[in-house]
């Protein structure tokens, strides 16, 4: 169940172990992510999702096991791994004091690309941030920060992208925007490893879903395979949520996108 596709996987993880002092977070994690596909890594808080991502992004060493990204070993070929990836962490890693455009130019220059200005302008346009481009990022809304964050990760077109809880704390509209962006990525052949706590997010985006629990991948399969394994109560919860979301989106869709829609919702049942 762990191998997919005929060609070498973009991400291959075998027997990964990692402890923090006495706490064993990862106790032998195995999974593959096929090229151009999206794997959603599901798990509750503290399950070790971020630890897996950090090891794959060469931010953290593993105690045991091997991992390779884009064919490069994360321990011995870290520099090549870094050439192949980009990371969008749990908290939008943007520079508050710089403008949106300056943030993009900064990353383009650090990736040693030619013509950082044009790259920045293209991405600003693609993520509907052109108007906000000269403004300090500290004035951005949560959704704009997240869009900028993801735009920064796309600079240089890395073949593998890690998205660590990309929609945590976002309102439903922004979440849909992020989802659209992620789907576009795989249309371009990018491999995505996504961690999330939201089952519907995995359902919407992922080709395969792996559940990290007790330090191991306990389930790894397609959505339909996974659904059969989940307790019924969880499934019910997943199915209810989109209905509420539909109502929310319908109610707020008349308003301008920039306003904080969460504060002025009214409970109308007549629609």
């Amino acid at each position: 169940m762990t191998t997919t596709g005929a060609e070498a996987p973009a991400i291959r993880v075998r027997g990964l172990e990692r402890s923090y002092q006495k706490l064993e977070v990862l106790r032998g994690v195995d999974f593959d992510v096929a090229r151009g596909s999206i794997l959603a890594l599901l798990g509750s808080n503290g399950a070790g999702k971020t630890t897996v991502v950090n090891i794959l992004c060469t931010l953290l060493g593993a105690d045991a096991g091997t991992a390779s990204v884009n064919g490069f070993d994360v321990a011995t070929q870290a520099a090549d791994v870094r050439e192949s990836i980009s990371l969008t962490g749990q908290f939008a890693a943007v520079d508050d004091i710089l403008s949106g455009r300056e943030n993009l130019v900064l990353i383009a220059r650090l990736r040693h690309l030619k013509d950082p200005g044009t790259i920045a302008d293209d991405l600003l346009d693609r993520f509907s941030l052109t108007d906000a481009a000269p403004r300090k990022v500290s004035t951005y809304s949560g959704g704009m920060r997240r869009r900028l964050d993801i735009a920064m990760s796309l600079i240089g077109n890395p073949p593998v992208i890690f998205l660590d809880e990309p929609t945590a704390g976002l309102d439903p509209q922004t979440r849909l925007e992020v989802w659209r962006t992620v789907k576009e990525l795989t249309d371009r052949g990018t491999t995505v490893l996504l961690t999330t706590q939201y089952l519907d997010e995995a359902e919407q985006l992922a080709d395969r879903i792996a559940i990290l629990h007790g330090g191991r991948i306990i389930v790894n399969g397609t959505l339909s395979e996974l659904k059969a394994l989940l307790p019924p109560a969880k499934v019910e919860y997943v199915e209810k949520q989109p209905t509420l979301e539909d109502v929310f989106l319908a109610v707020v869709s008349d308003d301008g996108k920039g306003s904080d829609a969460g504060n002025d919702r009214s409970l109308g049942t007549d629609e």
Partner: protein
Amino acid sequence: MTTHFFGDTAVLTGRSLRHITRSLDTIITTAIMPIAFMLLFVYVLGGAINSGSDSYVNYLLPGILLITIASGISYTAYRLFLDMKSGIFERFHSMPIARSSVLWAHVLTSLVANLISLVVVALVALVMGFRSGAGALAWLAVAGILILFTLALTWLAVIAGLTAKTVDGASAFSYPIILLPFVSSAFVPTDTMPGPVRAFAEHQPVTSIVNAIRDLFTQQPVGTDIWIALAWCLGILIVAYALAMATYRRKII
């Protein structure tokens, strides 16, 4: 990895220098405390202090300059801490850049910010009547000592910024360093102090640095003080650099 070290450091230094130029208040707050001390000591307490010097502001300035640096580096730790917490460090570290350039950018920015603050404080001292007949070479020597002292304290600040748990913790480490000049020859000659205090004052780094700078300003022979001062600065610099780098490596694998 190292092929891009200078380019990456330049790009990242440009970034954190923008943080300084866009929040000039950090320069001003850095300079305000030493200027306040200078006003207090020259116009309130100075009349009662027998420094053995014609002009108390001349006597005082070297110590005030060191206080300026000590208060300036707390912002270095603060900026570093915020970068660690915001996740932008992780972004940089997951990119194909020379990793140590992330630290060096903060160090160079600290140097620039402190030099600006030092110039501001020195200009205020000039207005208050500070005068020196020192030649270009002596001024260069003073600048060299101050730069070395700034670098030494900056690497201490890097350790604080990397290991702090809270924003307050990141900048609090500088308070003892700010107070160190008070128990030195910076404000009063050490021979007026009681035995143990005098022993401490005469054997801590600030006294030798202050004496060396004062001698350079007043065109006195610098004697052994300058060598002791340089030894202190270099010693702190090397130890702090080694500890900071070890801490950094532990943090990022």
